[in-house]
């Protein structure tokens, strides 16, 4: 028996709270409770009736501890996607959808919360999953450094021009500068600063790297049928895929030579599009998890939007911005310019842009691809749609 989950579950509510790193007004679990209640209010749904929870990236907030604050009547199901980094972000949607479609839960909250006061510096919290003596013995302790080594191959071996990273970062800041919720609100990218600011780990300078924020985010998923009776336009999950392939994974930098500089999404690309019955040309807008600029580019290539050869024709500032661009990306500013709570803003904006609630609307957008955290040992992506 095989069930195609496409179109059978939907996101009914969205909650997101973001603060400057280290300045959250509440500890992590308090922020998370706020975000979950926000998502429920957005949907017109009683938080006490949420009966399932799922997260990723080694989140510390065990759902059972949320019950008193939410008034949870029954906790019927809870889970977490394996893996560090943001590789599991879209995988949560597949788990939640499966739980709902098999009757294990009726209303599932997908969440992630991070506050420096609880989990330490984000880079360290994210990296804690991966660190070992192979890495620390050679000075590698942060995602930026490992992604930098892969970026170096993308540029110098596969011939991707470095200039495409600038195009992506510029488009992100264009969108972020128009988003009152974004860290970059009111601030467009100064190209001279981008090109000359301090190195983090070559080839990455400061603005090639995602932000670090305190915050929490939550999506409320229910069946498509239930979603139609709630307050907001349902945003259906059309497709989701997670996993990895032989030659990629947790291999202390011994991934296959052809895969090493990718984001790891070749493993799921066909499954993702086939489940939805769509192709890259059918995608109206992309919310791209870009921990670092080059990994965002690798992810776009993996997902079939361009190739090593034509990447510079597709990844152009004018083509990436909304409205008007042919491939609008990160319409809220993304991890680079909106903010970074382990990438959750990309999931949040996937829903908002299809509801017409984006700070940079894409007129008549019907499909949105959420490209999950690139470069992680296991990765995941999803496609959403509206009628």
């Amino acid at each position, binding site marked *: 028996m095989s069930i195609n989950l496409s179109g059978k579950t939907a996101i009914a509510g969205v909650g997101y709270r973001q603060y400057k790193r280290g300045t959250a007004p509440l500890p992590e679990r308090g922020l998370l409770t706020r975000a979950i209640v926000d998502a429920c209010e957005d949907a017109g749904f009683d938080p006490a009736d949420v009966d399932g929870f799922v997260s990723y990236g080694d989140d510390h907030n065990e759902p059972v501890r949320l019950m008193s604050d939410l008034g949870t009547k029954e906790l019927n199901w809870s889970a977490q996607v394996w893996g560090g980094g943001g590789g599991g972000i879209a995988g949560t949607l597949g788990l939640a959808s499966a739980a709902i479609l098999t009757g294990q839960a009726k209303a599932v909250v997908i969440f992630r919360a991070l506050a420096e006061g609880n989990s330490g510096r984000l880079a360290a919290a994210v990296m804690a999953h991966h660190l070992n003596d192979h*890495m620390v013995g050679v000075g590698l*302790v942060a995602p930026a450094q490992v992604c930098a080594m892969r970026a170096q191959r993308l540029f110098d071996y596969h011939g991707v021009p470095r200039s495409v990273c600038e195009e992506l970062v510029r488009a992100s800041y264009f969108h972020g500068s128009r988003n009152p919720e974004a860290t970059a609100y009111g601030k467009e990218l100064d190209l001279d600063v981008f090109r000359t600011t301090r190195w983090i780990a070559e080839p990455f300078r400061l603005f090639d790297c995602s932000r670090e924020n305190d915050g929490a985010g939550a999506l409320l998923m229910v069946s498509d049928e239930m979603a139609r009776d709630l307050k907001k336009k349902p945003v259906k999950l059309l497709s989701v895929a997670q996993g990895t392939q032989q030659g990629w994974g947790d291999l202390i*930098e*011994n991934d296959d030579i052809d895969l090493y500089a990718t984001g790891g999404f070749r493993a799921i690309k066909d499954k993702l599009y086939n489940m939805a019955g769509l192709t890259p040309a059918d995608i109206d807008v992309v919310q791209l998890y870009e921990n670092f600029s080059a990994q965002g580019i690798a992810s776009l290539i993996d997902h079939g939007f361009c190739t090593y050869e034509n990447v510079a024709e597709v990844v152009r500032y004018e083509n990436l911005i909304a409205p008007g661009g042919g491939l609008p990306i990160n319409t809220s500013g993304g991890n680079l310019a909106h903010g970074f709570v382990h990438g959750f803003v990309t999931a949040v904006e996937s829903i908002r842009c299809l509801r017409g609630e984006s700070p940079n609307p894409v007129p008549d957008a019907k499909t949105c691809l959420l490209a999950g955290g690139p470069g992680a040992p296991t990765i995941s992506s999803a496609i959403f749609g509206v009628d």
Partner: protein
Amino acid sequence: MMAQMVNGQLGAEGPYWDALAQGRLMLPRCNGCGKWHWPAVWRCGACGSWDHAWHEQPLAGTVFTWTRTHHRFAGTEGLDLPYATALVLLDAVPIRLNGLIEGDESALAIGAAVTGRTAFTQFGKDKIPSIRWNLA
């Protein structure tokens, strides 16, 4: 001696750490099908054998990729900034190993030839056995 990692989970690579701490590079090969495994495995996923032997290898190869770190990430206080890390494809076996670059870095590029030595890296209060690569 039984190897322990200070950070992270120890897999099947115990003999690697024991050897590295003693100044030698040892790598594992499947006695069933001859495949070199890195990371090390207990069971060969290619042929199903549980029988592996560790072989000493020379520290020489070519740069597969590299980065130069300028930002002071927590835990790296034992290293002077900036420092370069290179992932090197060994000449003798199809395995890549990371090491810190020491000496003249002017020839650092993908494809550059290197030779290596073993050393210890100060990480917090611990000394971690690790590799140093020198550009030829």
